């Protein structure tokens, strides 16, 4: 089973069209293995992207070097998935 330890979901807020284009460019950075949960739309709408642990630093460096604002929407994805799985398992035990 694939795990997502240390994966974070960043919420990116491009300030203008130029920054929007820079975020759009990230879609082609296959080495980062980014997973866009909410894709690039318009300046007013944030972009949510899951970033694997191995490319977290380089992704944040890229954003910060372009002065693109972002926040951390999910600190550690695996923690949430573990909670979800635990809930399913306990519900299934209760059903048993």
């Amino acid at each position, binding site marked *: *089973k694939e795990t997502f330890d240390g994966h974070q979901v960043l919420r990116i807020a491009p300030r203008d069209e130029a920054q929007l284009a820079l975020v759009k460019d990230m879609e082609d950075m296959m080495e980062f293995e980014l997973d866009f*949960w*909410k894709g690039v739309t318009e300046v007013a709408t944030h972009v949510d992207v899951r970033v694997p642990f191995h490319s977290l630093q380089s992704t944040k460096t890229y954003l910060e070097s372009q002065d693109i604002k972002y926040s951390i929407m999910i600190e550690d994805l695996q923690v949430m998935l573990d909670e979800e799985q635990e809930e399913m398992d306990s519900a299934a035990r209760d059903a048993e």
Partner: protein
Amino acid sequence: PRNTDSFDFSRYHTLNEIYSFQDMLVAENPKMVSKIVIGRSYEGRPLNVLKFSTGGTNRPAIWIDTGIHSREWVTQASGTWFAKKIVTDYGSDPALTAILDTMDIFLEIVTNPDGYYYTHNTNRMWRKTRKPNSGSSCVGVDPNRNWDAGFGGAGASSNPCSETYHGPSAHSESEVKSIVDFVKSHGNLKAFLSIHSYSQMLLYPYGYTRTVAKDQAELHAVAEKAITDLASLYGTRYRYGSIITTIYQASGGTIDWTYNQGIKYSYTFELRDTGRYGFILPANQIIPTAKETWLALMVIMDHTYKNLY
């Protein structure tokens, strides 16, 4: 659970549990509910569609699908709840009873079973189908970019490793082609509602072009009423509009194709939430999400019933 009354709608279920639920619902309601297998997924799983009908032949009908993107678990869970809601409310809710006395409802709860199974057993974040792509190590096609509506245009990727890979050709995915064939063979669908998550939006065509849909004014008005009723329950706020003006350009999308087939009331829902949990929506939000969404679905179904064309 021994019957659908004791089925726990407030938690996420495996593929087999949903298949069992479907069979139980059919067995409990032989006069109203039947199961149609419209095709097979790439890995050979049945594409089950529940048909809710009170009689007649090839009546005008409404299509609802959930789970075409497998990781959007709240949609399959909501679809399961919708199925039970329909059989529970028929005969007691006047609006639904009127609809079902004239129309049929088709509900495909697990539209991408291979992907859904994979999210439970291998990769919770999986979105696409599970068919290998020749010439690539990456697997799967985005089933919401594989339709013959602006196929391959801007708003989809030609890279098999992308989450929005459109596939080698339109309708290349059996999960998509099976619906295409069903829609064409039925020929009397009047509404097509495809349910995704997340970001709380109600969208209508088009996504692949900036051309305004010819029924845009009516679609917009119905969407406004639908999200107003939805918000009346818990205050959940939705945005609404055409795909391309509300979110982004997306080519090869489901409801662009269905609208171009003449199914006027074609909508896509994006359910909860706006990004606190995203695709990992806690199970305790399943029933509230399903209940509020049902209010919006009823607006669209009621409008369709009262404006048959």
